[in-house]
């Protein structure tokens, strides 16, 4: 066992954290978030130049990272800055299946910051079930045509290319019969309705009406690819939550030491000190489970590997949901009234932390999933 980061990873972590701390002030983040695009193209290019997109992509497809550890490092740094640029949609969810099939051309453009992706997978009524796909794909002379509805697709409106899941066979909740397609969003069969999300991001409802798609991998056997993409996503947002929780904790600590009431800093009260300590412990627990999940993300042998990998991912996501809510609520409470204002940074962290519980399955969903995979591991 070795808990130390390699020199290269330590450098990457330092670079990412320093850049985000110095070059990514929250006012600028808000401005980018509220803009038409929902993020800053200039900033995205800078992130690409720093190598932070490539750090999410494995060397086999010309990236320079892509392991669980890399993803965790990058996203913890992104979480510290509440970064709104589409790392998750493009570098994780969109890129995942392309990594699986070795599409170097597209990934090269992704790494350079020149191609934006989105994974259009979730559907109305599907909640967090990965196999819940009603969208259908049928093969005709003109190729595959896809029809269906996709919901809350992160970065769905900005993507240059959509990765769309669809069913070619089987019942609605079956793992068999799923396929992934690359879909050009600028065709008549694709309609997108975009909206901002409460945590500063953007998403879209996407209607596909006979949209033309090009298969990724073997149609009908895409479930494993979808699971891997979402697994990477779970790890990424868990790390992002950790980074955001660290900052929320630090902001609160600072506030407790400076805010004076009854003639002394409110942090002089033992009740608040103890609550901070409990929060600190739980955040360290998240970090520990995250390290575990990161270390098993790349297991891809047989069913046993899959069970271990998915079990550890669900463990950390469950904990992120549980601890995230604690941290968000406690840090707001300890700040008092000012935490209810837009002007303070803290509530924006709290919003992102809580909304992460709504991505890829909440704390209960992952507890159930943990139980299911635990039975397979045992």
């Amino acid at each position, binding site marked *: 066992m070795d808990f130390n980061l*390699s020199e290269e990873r330590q450098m990457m972590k330092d670079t990412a954290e320093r850049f985000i701390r110095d070059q990514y002030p929250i006012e600028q983040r808000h401005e980018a978030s509220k803009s038409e695009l929902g993020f800053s193209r200039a900033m995205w290019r800078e992130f690409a130049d720093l190598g932070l997109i490539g750090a999410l992509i494995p060397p086999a497809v010309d990236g320079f990272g892509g392991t669980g550890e890399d993803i965790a490092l990058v996203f913890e740094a992104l979480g510290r800055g509440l970064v709104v640029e589409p790392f998750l949609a493009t570098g994780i969810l969109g890129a995942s299946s392309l990594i699986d099939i070795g599409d170097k051309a597209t990934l090269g453009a992704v790494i350079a910051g020149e191609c934006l992706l989105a994974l259009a997978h979730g559907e109305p009524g599907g909640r967090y079930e990965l196999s819940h796909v009603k969208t259908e794909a049928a093969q005709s002379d003109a190729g595959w045509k896809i029809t269906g509805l996709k919901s809350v697709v992160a970065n769905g409106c900005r993507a240059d290319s959509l990765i769309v899941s669809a069913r070619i066979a089987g019942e609605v909740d079956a793992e068999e019969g799923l396929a992934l397609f690359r879909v050009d969003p600028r065709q008549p069969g694709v309609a997108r309705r975009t909206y901002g999300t409460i945590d500063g991001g953007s998403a879209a409802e996407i209607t596909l009406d006979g949209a033309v798609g090009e298969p990724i991998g073997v149609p009908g056997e895409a479930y494993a690819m979808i699971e891997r993409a979402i697994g990477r996503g779970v790890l990424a947002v868990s790390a992002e939550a950790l980074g955001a929780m660290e900052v929320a904790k630090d902001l609160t600590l600072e506030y407790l030491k400076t805010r004076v009431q009854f003639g002394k800093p409110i942090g002089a009260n033992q009740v608040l*000190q103890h609550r901070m300590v409990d929060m600190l412990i739980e955040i360290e627990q998240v970090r520990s489970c995250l390290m575990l999940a990161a270390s098993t993300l790349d297991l891809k042998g047989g069913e046993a590997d899959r069970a271990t990998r998915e079990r550890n991912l669900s463990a950390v996501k*469950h904990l992120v949901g549980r601890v995230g809510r604690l941290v968000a609520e406690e840090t707001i409470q300890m700040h008092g009234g000012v935490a209810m204002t837009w002007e303070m940074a803290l509530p924006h962290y709290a919003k992102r932390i809580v909304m992460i519980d709504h991505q890829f399955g909440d704390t209960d969903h992952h507890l159930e999933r943990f139980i299911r995979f635990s039975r397979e591991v045992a």
Partner: protein
Amino acid sequence: MDLSYTAEEQAFRDDVRDWLKECLSPRLVTKVRKAQRLTKADYDEWHSLLATREWMAWHWPTEHGGTGWTPVQKHIFEEEMAVAGAPRIVPFGVNMLGPVLIQYGTQAQKDTYLPRILSGEDWWAQGYSEPGAGSDLASLKTKAIWDGDHYIVNGQKTWTTLAHFANRMFCLVRTDPFAAKPQQGISFLLIDLDNPGIEIRPIYTLEGEHEVNEVFLTDVRVPVENLVGPENDGWTVAKYLLNYERTGIAGVGASKQALVELKRIAATERKDGRALAEDPLFAARMARLEIDLMGMEIFNLRVVAAAGEGKLPGAESSLLKIKGTQVRQEITDLMRRAVGPYAAPDLPEAFDEGWNGDAPGSDYALALARSYFNMRKTSIYGGSNEIQRNIVAKHLLGF
């Protein structure tokens, strides 16, 4: 970063496991598994067994007979002891006094006492708490007064775990009642319990067991060479020891084994026509706990590894103590609830060696409520969890 065990670490685990399987007596394992009362002879047997492999002292430098293990090896050893059903290693001599003597003891003290700790010849008790000095340890009143080449000690110690098995006690005493601060004027003395003037009285704990004691000291004569560290500077020594007391206090190995037992019980007990383990609510409670424990295990290893080889973590060990005891208590809570009404029957005789009677319910149910109540102590002893939070607030959060 690599969270998998290396080949060497795996080989070490195999060695420990094989050795325990071969050498640990089935009689002891049965007693531990049934939570039966361990006698002094039982502990002595276990300690002597460890001594044959020179595995008694994990925390000591090798030149004093320590194992020289890495944090990961210590973790593996702790796990394997729990898996094998070994008794705990009584910590007072080897984990607490040993490191103190190595740091602060005179050469004569080291030469005299360290080998006797390793061999199990001496059984030390911890004379820290007093009736008026619990969390506020520095308010202790037991006093020691110079008389030629002796101290005369008068006072009372309490919560003295297994003092009825001990032949010696390390003790915090007040040598300067006029010191400016309560922490000053305290000294660290080694006391022979065979001395006249010492009386040990049992305290029966809430489940009716004799594990802790009161120790009364009346005009006890202690040679001045039994002073450890400078006179009136015993608080420094005391704190050094407390840090050691908290190592391993997370009890990850024991909790992991307890979780295995909880799962076994939940697989056996029935609810609504199926195993309790299949009940969604109970399964969820167990799973939450298991996730906490998974985090705890990595957290524990991280902290110990970060402290560096042979060094101790500082206030981080307080974080481990809080979370570790919470998890441990939570497990005993679920175990108690798992057996339903059969948690209630209490047969004190069932915890004597060789008991062969019939339990009203399942055998395994008998110890569960007792264990639940007994484990309440873990968030109180070794500095209550509230005191640990104070320590973290001061040293890690800068309050």
